[in-house]
């Protein structure tokens, strides 16, 4: 599977990670090469084989609905790049 420049730009938008032109070219070539090697999976007959997401056979892990202590707000905000009045601060989402 060869990725086009537009493919990589589209992915870049999907994962919200901008790229320089040099990165774009490098990733286009490298990811194409990797995907070509993954074509080997087409050989495998997976008819009627169910997918596995996690190894242990756990289902519906739930906890009791009771109040437990949590970290103080100040501890959580201590790593925030920008904060204001107890909130994380970001630039306007809508113009």
């Amino acid at each position, binding site marked *: 599977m060869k990725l086009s420049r537009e493919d990589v730009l589209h992915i870049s938008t999907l994962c919200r990670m*901008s790229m320089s032109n040099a990165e774009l070219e490098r990733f286009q070539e490298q*990811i194409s090469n990797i995907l070509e090697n*993954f074509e*080997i999976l087409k050989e495998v007959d997976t008819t009627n084989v169910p*997918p*596995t997401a996690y190894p242990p056979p756990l289902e519906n892990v739930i906890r009791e609905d009771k109040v437990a202590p949590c970290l103080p707000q100040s501890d959580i905000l*201590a790593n925030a790049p920008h904060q204001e009045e107890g909130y994380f601060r970001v*630039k*306007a*989402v809508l113009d």
Partner: protein
Amino acid sequence: MNLYDLTIHQSHELLKNGEVSSTELTRAVLERISKVEEKLHAIVTVTEELALRQAQQADERIRSGDSTPLTGIPALIKDNMCTRGIRTTCASRMLENFVPPYNATVVEKLGDAGVVIVGKGNMDEFAMGSSNEHSAFFVTHNPWDLGSVPGGSSGGPAAAVAAGEAIYALGSDTGGSIRQPAGFCSIVGLKPTYGRVSRYGLVAFASSLDQIGPMTKDVTDSALVMNVIAGYDHRDSTSVNYPVPDYTKALSSDLNGLKLGIPREYFVEGMQKGVEEVMRTAIAKLEDLGATVDWEASLPSTRYALAAYYIIAPSEAMANLARYDGVKYGYSYDGENMWDDMEKTRQFGFGPEVKRRIILGTYALSAGYYDAYYLKAQKVRTLIMQEFQQAFEHYDALITPTSPTVPFKIGQKVDDPLQMYLSDVCTLPINIGGIPGLVVPAGFCDGLPVGMQILGKPFSEETLLRIGYAYEQATDWGQQRPPILERQNDAS
């Protein structure tokens, strides 16, 4: 013998009998760090003050007769496990200044046992890599040959333990990140069964594959650390509620009655001749010790494991790493608007390998490709797991090499991602299967270490430790320490 070369159980004997104090032991390790770290670059943050304070507390605890086998013994924690109040970077610019407000469950458990934390170990950024060359800060060197890689992603912990910068370490393993560096640095590394050790507070890479485990100088130490870190944790919803045995009880010096399989697919094309020779000698030794060996074991889907892994792991990684948006913590770019901030935060905060995997994972999960890549890989995962299950109906354990080659040179594979991925070809099927894998030193090829990998069915860590222990007692590979460092120190 130097104090820093001691194992956990040797240290514990000396501490318990009052022959050495934790403070003395800790100072010896810290001095060792200051002597060799400039050559190794194995540690991101050295926590000297904390270590000496914990050592003092441990000494009081030992005097009061309330010590555990880990009390007062210096450990290195891989820098992707949260340590309250201690910078936890994942060797990434993104988290360069991140100070967690809480401890990972494993750190909490070691704390209860009286750990002395000497620092946080270097790694490939966000645990993505097989050589430690993807650390955003510096490359860790292999203590057996400073021009070679220590393996990855837990290369810092592996190099540190081999060189005496810690008595033991905790690593994490998503596709071989404990076992491959353990093999490359000639120490013991255990990736436990998925769900055996809590992942709470481990910075997530690929949530269905990640597992924390011990990196130690011998098998007894591995059992001692497992006794502390294994067990159910309600804060990790994938943690399995299964009884924790005393793993040291499993250690015995013969292998009578054990049936071992050698899966032929693991003796891959392109495997280094010397590595294969070391493996054949090691397997013959297991036979001498009483095991029955079948060279005809087969796991045919192994050849698809690499592709399945490098679709599943990046897909999970791209979802897990979506949280790094410059808002709540970590690096934050100040751009023109909200989207510009986020997109450039990720452009400048992540290194090349992390970006490659985010792109690969995003592509594999995107509309139109999900079925062909991600769903297909998950189905292949089922087949790989079924083959392991069938194999363990016949064998108590499987024996394989840890990596097709000895440690490679720094710079050799860093620009060729596919070649780098191939160095995990013997370790990553184990994460896909969710089974445990133990690596023990098995000898040397051209002066560089070779590790033997022992695999078992889920929750068979005791069998793996038994095999590793018997082999270790019958050989002296694990007792050898890298001499190169002393030679180079003498010369300087």
